């Protein structure tokens, strides 16, 4: 989600610290992992925001401020020069918006069901599905040439 290992480490630590401090607010009705994922998502978003401020980039629209912030997409010249598939894959992941990447990671890597991802991201089921679909579509557009080339 952060596209950066050091930031990810900070997010992990901050997540558990926030979870500890908010433990009394955890509602038994909710699933603990959903609650923890939500905190982690918020921490990641805060980290990305902070990085953006650090980097001196400014967006006016608060809702879209996260889109592409964690993008580590290399420029076309670097992409062409890179031979490793993982570089292409991570570049493709970096082109997803923050919301798309989060939803995709939770679905693809964590294997969470749609409704749980929706609860984490505060999205309706249909919106969650659509976000994941958009992510997959973008990844296909970026990576299909690679797959075709390999086959």
């Amino acid at each position: 989600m952060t596209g950066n290992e050091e930031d990810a480490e900070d997010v992990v630590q901050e997540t558990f610290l926030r979870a500890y401090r908010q433990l009394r607010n955890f509602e038994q009705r909710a699933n603990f992992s959903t609650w923890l994922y939500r905190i982690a998502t918020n921490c990641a978003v805060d980290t990305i925001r902070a990085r953006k401020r650090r980097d001196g980039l400014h967006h006016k629209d608060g809702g879209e401020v996260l889109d592409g912030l964690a993008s580590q997409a290399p420029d076309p010249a670097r992409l062409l020069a890179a031979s490793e598939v993982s570089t292409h894959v991570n570049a493709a992941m970096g082109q997803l918006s923050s919301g798309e990447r989060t939803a995709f990671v939770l679905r693809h890597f964590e294997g969470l069901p749609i409704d749980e991802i929706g609860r984490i991201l505060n999205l309706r089921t249909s919106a969650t599905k659509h976000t994941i679909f958009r992510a997959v579509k973008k990844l296909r557009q970026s990576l299909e040439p690679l797959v075709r080339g390999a086959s």
Partner: protein
Amino acid sequence: MNRHATEEELVDYHYDPLQATGLIGVHLSQCAVCSDAFSELRSVLTLVGKNALVPERSEGYGSEVWQRLRWQIGRDKTSILHRVQPAAAWGSIAATVTIAFLAGTLWQRPQSGTLQAPTGTLAGTTISSEDEERLLKAVVGDHLQRSQRILLDVVNASPARSSEIDAVEDAGDLLAANRLYRQSAERSGAMELEQLLTELEPILIELSHATPGHDSSQLDAVRKRVEGQGILLKLRVVGSQMRGGESRSLAIRTRTS
């Protein structure tokens, strides 16, 4: 199905073939166009799964994070323990624990506890309220640590190893102690502790009722409950606070009677 599958349907089918409409599966077996599209989709997603940079973490990663957190949590003034009224609450619980300790009801079995002090050494001792509180924290902290260890065993065991877990036997002991601490915490208004012990109790009941060595579905149910409630984190946090003074020895002054 008399049309081609949409891309969205194929994505749904890829991630959850059982949830997606059964028509898609049938259609894919009959339609070469959709079958090719699905293969291509799967190839891309497999490529992502295999090549995305997800840093590897060692088995000890959880402990590393915890060590870093302990330092910060230790400085946290909103500590759960600080929210408990110390004088009244801890005094009351400590009294109960001490009585139970002296009565020898909890740690009679030599293999079951780390608190090995025989009742004789406590008989005839005078314990100050401060020492009572320390004793309580040590005893309840030990209880939480043992509970955590058992639940970790259950959560980490593979289905094949479920039959080897000996947590079932220990759960019975812990259950008795847990009830005592919970009732004491309830009476004395140590709400955070009471809440944790209340959450722990049904898990221990379930665990103690599991058939040792056989029914892995019972342990699966416990596993789900543990993971769903985040009880391990709570045990770790509260247990760690309880044992915060573990480097200090219990200063129990013995009075020769």
